[in-house]
Each structure stands twice: as structure tokens, then as C-alpha cells.
């Protein structure tokens, strides 16, 4: 891979300011269409959704009475809401750690293995290209069935992978890791390939071992990528829905139902859109808190590092 050194000579400070002002004028024009769509399809629905969460509106748009924070009070007293919120958090922790670590390990392997690299890249990234329904059917119908599934057949075990509350979440995590690790792998691989080789050459001259190079050159230079991957991964994991809905429907005994599915269940099959909106806003607040905490955490580290 070639890394281009892109640092065009900058003009004097006066010229620079002029150019920037010009860009702002045109920029608004360019950003305008996006802003309109953003307002219509994100900001406005967000406000509307909050308004719905304060009402008893049903799926037909009827029974639309303002009931204040009753939905929130009901949600906070609802054991199934807490259970599904807890499931979402458990899934996030269980999936994020292997997805980040395994992505890094796979990228390091592929980066250092010099033969048939395309094959490794394709194999690790391949599953990510498949839609969630295909993944769910593959694991549900071929890999996890207790009596004729691939997994029990290979291992000689007799485990109800998706049917037992104690293994169901782990099974979902396993499927998810297999499915999505390719994306993190690709980000890491790209980052690895952009590390200038002269750093390693210099380290070789100084007699550094492979482990030293990994610890002192590779990992520190991957820091920015790691931050990005962790942020993306946490948000993606908190939003988990597809594979769980398709593979267990939230069962057995509520062991896997994530909060988004709970909102879906009470809203679309229970017809209570107002209450479903309130549940969604609880998740929304959670995601905001996690994101803010993350920003603070990484900013502090950055300051320490610099």
C-alpha cells in the first residue's frame, strides 16, 4: 500500500482567511438540501416521538390523549422493560469485547501472513456482506438445532443452544461475532497498512523484538482506530434487534429480548405506540449517556497522551 504525503504548501494567513469565508458562503448552499432532509426525517420525528411518548396514542392514531409522564412511570415499574434493558447491556458487553479484540487479532494475522492474503480477507469479511435474515436462518436452521444441527453434531454435545436461557445469549453473541467481526477487521487492517514501514525498519536496526514492535509501534498507532471502532461497536450493539428477533424472538423466558424488541412488541403487536415511544426514549437517553461518557473518557486519555 502506498501512503501519499498530502501536505500542500499553505498560502499566507491573509489568503487563507479569504478562502475560508468563501467556502462558508458556498458551503451553506451545499449543506442546505441535506439540512432540510435532516430536519424533516430526523429532528422533526425525534420531537414528534417525544410528544407521542407523553400520550396514550394507539397504532391507528386514535385514543390520542395527553397523559404526561404516565408512560414513563409505567415503564420504570415494568419488570420486563428492566429485563430487556439489562439484556441489551449484557449483549453490548459480551459482544463488544470479542468484536474489538478478535478484529484486531485477525487483522494482525492477515497483515503478517504473506500468502493468499485475498483469501483471508474475503473469508473474514464475507459474512458481513450477508443480510441479517440469511445469517439468522443459517444459524437457526443449520447450526444450532439441538437434534440435527452442525454444532451439536460436530462437538458431540447435547445443548439447546437457543432454547436454554443460560446459553441463548451466548449463542446470539457467537453468531453476531462471526457475522460482524469482518467490519472491525477491515478497519484495523486498513489502519495497519497505513503505518509507515520505516518505523519498523528503524526498530529492527535497534534490535527490537516482534513483541516490542507490536507494543511500542503498532498498538499506539492504532489508538485512533480503536477509539473509532469501540464507539461504532457500542452504538451498534446497543441497537441490536434483527438477529435476536429472528432467532429467538426474545425468548426463552425473556433471556434475550433486547429493549428495541420490547418497544416493537408493545408498539406493533400490542398496538400501544405511546408506551413504545416512552420505552424508546429510555434507550435514547442511555445511548446519549454512553456516548458522552465515552467522549469524556477518550478526551481525557488524549490529553494525558499528548
Amino acid at each position, binding site marked *: 500500500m502506498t501512503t501519499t504525503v498530502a501536505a500542500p504548501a499553505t498560502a499566507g494567513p491573509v489568503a487563507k482567511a479569504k478562502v475560508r469565508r468563501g467556502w462558508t458562503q458556498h458551503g451553506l448552499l451545499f449543506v442546505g438540501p441535506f439540512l432540510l432532509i435532516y430536519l424533516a426525517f430526523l429532528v422533526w420525528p425525534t420531537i414528534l416521538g417525544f410528544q407521542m411518548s407523553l400520550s*396514550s396514542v*394507539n*397504532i*391507528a*392514531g*386514535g*385514543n390520542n390523549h395527553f397523559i404526561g409522564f404516565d408512560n414513563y412511570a*409505567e415503564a420504570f415499574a*415494568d419488570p*420486563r422493560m428492566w429485563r430487556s434493558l439489562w439484556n441489551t447491556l449484557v449483549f453490548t458487553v459480551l459482544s463488544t469485547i470479542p468484536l474489538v479484540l478478535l478484529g484486531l487479532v485477525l487483522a494482525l494475522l492477515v497483515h503478517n501472513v504473506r500468502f493468499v492474503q485475498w483469501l483471508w480477507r474475503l473469508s473474514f469479511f464475507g459474512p458481513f456482506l450477508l443480510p441479517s435474515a440469511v445469517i439468522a436462518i443459517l444459524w*437457526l436452521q443449520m447450526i444450532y438445532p*439441538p*437434534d440435527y444441527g452442525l454444532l451439536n453434531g460436530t462437538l458431540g454435545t447435547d445443548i*439447546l443452544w*437457543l*432454547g436454554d436461557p443460560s446459553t441463548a445469549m451466548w449463542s446470539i453473541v457467537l453468531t453476531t461475532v462471526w457475522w460482524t467481526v469482518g467490519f472491525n477487521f477491515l478497519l484495523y487492517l486498513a489502519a495497519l497498512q497505513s503505518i509507515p514501514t520505516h518505523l519498523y525498519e528503524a526498530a529492527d536496526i535497534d534490535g527490537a523484538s516482534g513483541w516490542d514492535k507490536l507494543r511500542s509501534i503498532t498498538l499506539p498507532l492504532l489508538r485512533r482506530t480503536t477509539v473509532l471502532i469501540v464507539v461504532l461497536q457500542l452504538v451498534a450493539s446497543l441497537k441490536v434487534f434483527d438477529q435476536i428477533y429472528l*432467532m*429467538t*424472538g426474545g*425468548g*426463552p*423466558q*425473556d433471556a434475550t429480548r433486547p429493549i428495541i424488541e420490547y418497544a416493537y*412488541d408493545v408498539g*406493533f*403487536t*400490542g*398496538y*400501544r*405506540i405511546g*408506551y413504545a415511544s416512552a420505552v424508546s426514549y429510555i434507550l435514547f437517553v442511555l445511548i446519549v449517556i454512553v456516548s458522552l461518557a465515552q467522549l469524556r473518557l477518550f478526551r481525557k486519555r488524549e490529553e494525558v497522551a499528548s
Partner: protein
Amino acid sequence: MHGPPDITRRHLLGGSLALLGAAATGCAIPMGLGSSQTRVKYWHFLGASDGIIMNKMVGAFAKDNPDIFVEENVLQWGEPFYTKVAMAGAGGRSPDLASFHLARLAGIGAGQILDPIDVKLLEEAGLRGADFSPPIWERAHLDGVLYAIPFDAHPMVEYYNTDICQKAGLLGPDGKLAPTNGVDELIARLTKAKDVMGGKPPLAFDALGLGTVGPWRVWYSLYPQSGGTLVSDDGTTVTIDDAKALEALRLMQRLGKEGLCDWRTDYGASVAKFTNGEAAFLWNGDWETTGLKERGTPFSMTRFPTVFGTGAAQADCHAFVLPHQRARDPEVERATYRFIAYLVKNSADWAVAGHVPAYLPALEEPDYLALQPQSEYRSVITEVALDPQVWFAGSASRMWIEFGEAFSPVIAGTRTPEEGLAAAKASLNRLMSAPNPFPEERS
């Protein structure tokens, strides 16, 4: 030098316009001979063998009524179907006609999502209330207004493999399974079948899996036999009789524990096992009849076994409804009623699928009586256990799914009957305390 063929901008534009035009004409909805036909949009959830029979009936109707085109749209059964009907009815631009489960009627917000049935038009098409099974006709009303036209009842039944039962000496001289009465007789019968099957579990039913409702179906076939109920008539208090409920659950657990039923089969596996002769009995709804016949399984059917007194069996009923439309075209409306009347009057054809017709004249027809084994369990029509009339009940409702989830581990033996009942009651209480999303409009 020959370059690539010249494509000018004008050529390209002209070409794409021509292509677009061709695509537009090619994709037009077939309307028969111009627009002389009246189009009736029909949504239903009848899949597998039910779907094949319904499709044949729609075809037969089209032959007799060339002026009407019924656009059949088959959607997935279950929760998603009811979400779609609710959304379509809410928008007011819905299909002209949809299939439905009677027990879901109380929960859909009839009057907002569904339009009432015009009894005058129905009579014009030749259908009268007196022609329907009275308890089912009654259930098609809400506050005295008719919202559905009943089509059939589909109770839980017992399928039995005639070869295995023959070997186990369970068939009477007429080649039919001798009726059972009481727990001991049921256990004795299953044990005999187990012996001739080399110790394999003789009974299969949908006991676990994704969104399983099988445990609910079995429990709600057993529990009402001893007179148990779920909620009071006005739908405000839980009336579960713990002793009777536990008796039924203990039996279900015993079946799993003693290897009399395979508690590890989900819906698909239970049907597959019975089809392949790996189970002597299958407890399921009556809709697998055609499939089993096609695959040549030696089987017959009978009523769900009587274990606790009476012969109740869990059931729901297929019906037709008119999802809400802002403006209904009178011509289409008339055609819709004609189509419904055709289906209902030809219920004997529909009964091939295994369902018991709700249209009483069909029950007397020689065609129906000659259907074997479909007419064997027709007497159950008077003893079906329908869901309580509450907003959270009915096929694939939250109540079914939550009861199924609560009882599935009882059959597997990982939960005691007491724990299973407690979980089910907790679900029921939660559902009852949640506000009805479609309260009666008081304005």
C-alpha cells in the same frame, strides 16, 4: 480506427425513455379485459395446504364470476399479519377484505380498524345469521355490532398413526382409536404405543421454540375440561383456578418426564416426526390434514382426548373482516359480499383443509360427511374453548406467546408446574393492568 459506437446524449435519452415506457406497460396490473372487471383486494394468512385450497376456491369463484377479479395477497400468519391489518385499517386505504381470527376481534379496535358488516348486503348475498353456529356467530359481534363473518372453527385435535396404534392394539374393531377417559387411560394408551415403538416417545406436539404457542394450546385444551376459566366475563379479574390449572400442568410435565412426549420438538419437528411415523400421536390444530394426506402418512384423526371430565379443546375461528376504508366503492363492496358468500356457502370444499365449517348447512352436506377423517371430530364444535373476550387474547396474541413461554419449561422439566403457573399469572396480570390501546370511545 474504429472507436466505440457513438452514443449521443439525445440517443441515450431517447433510448431510456423508450425503455421506461416498455417497463411501465409491462408491469401494469392485469385487469382482465380492460377495466370491465371489479377488483376485490383480498388479504389472507392461509399458507401451506390451507393456502392451496383457498387459492383453488378463489380460482373457482373467478370461473363462475368473470366480472369480478379477486386479487389474492398471501401474508405471513401471526403477529406481523395483525400489525399489517392494523396499520392498513388505520390509514383507511386498506384491502377490501381480510381473513381474521375471531378471538382477535376484541383487541383490534373494531370500529376504528375494522368497518362493521352490512347485514342487509350480507342477506342480499344469501347469508343469514341463523345459518351459523350460534356461539361463533355471537363471538363475531362486539356490543351488538357485527364485525366479522365466521368461516370455520379450527380446534386442537389428536392425529394418530393407524399402523402403530394397530400394532399396539389400540384400535377398535372399526379401525378407529378407542376413546380415552381420564389420566390413567391416557397414560396407559401412550405407554402401550411407546412399547411397540421401542421406547421412543409416542406423542409429539409443539413444545418449545421461537414464539411457541403449543404449550398454551395443549394447556388450554386440558384446563377447561375441568371447568377452569381465565378471566371473568367482564375481563376485569383473573379467575384461574390454581388446583385445576396445576393438575393440567402436572400432567404435561409427567408426559415429558416419563418419556411419553418428546419435549424437545418445536412446531416443525413435531409435524415432521408424525409424518415420518416417528410418533404415534400428534396434538395439533386440524390444519395439517391435507399435508399429511399428500405425504402418505397412515393416519386418522379424532377429538382431543378427554382427560379431566368434559371434552373441551382449544380453538379459534377463521373469519372475514372488512378493514376500515375511508370511502368504500359500492360496486366493489357488493362484489366483496358476493365473494364472501361464495366462500362460506362452499365451506365443504374448505373443510378438506381440516377445519370444521361454521356454516351449519355445510355440516349436513353429504360431501362434508364423506370427508375422512375431517368429519370425525365435527362434534367438537359445541365444546370448543375459545379465548376470553379481552383485548390481549387471540391467535398469536401476547397472551398466547407469554403463556407458551411460561409453560414450555414445565414440559421440559426445568420449571415446576407452580413456577410455570406463577409466571403465566404474572403475565396475565400485567396484560390486564396495561391500558387497552383501543378503549371504547366515549364521546
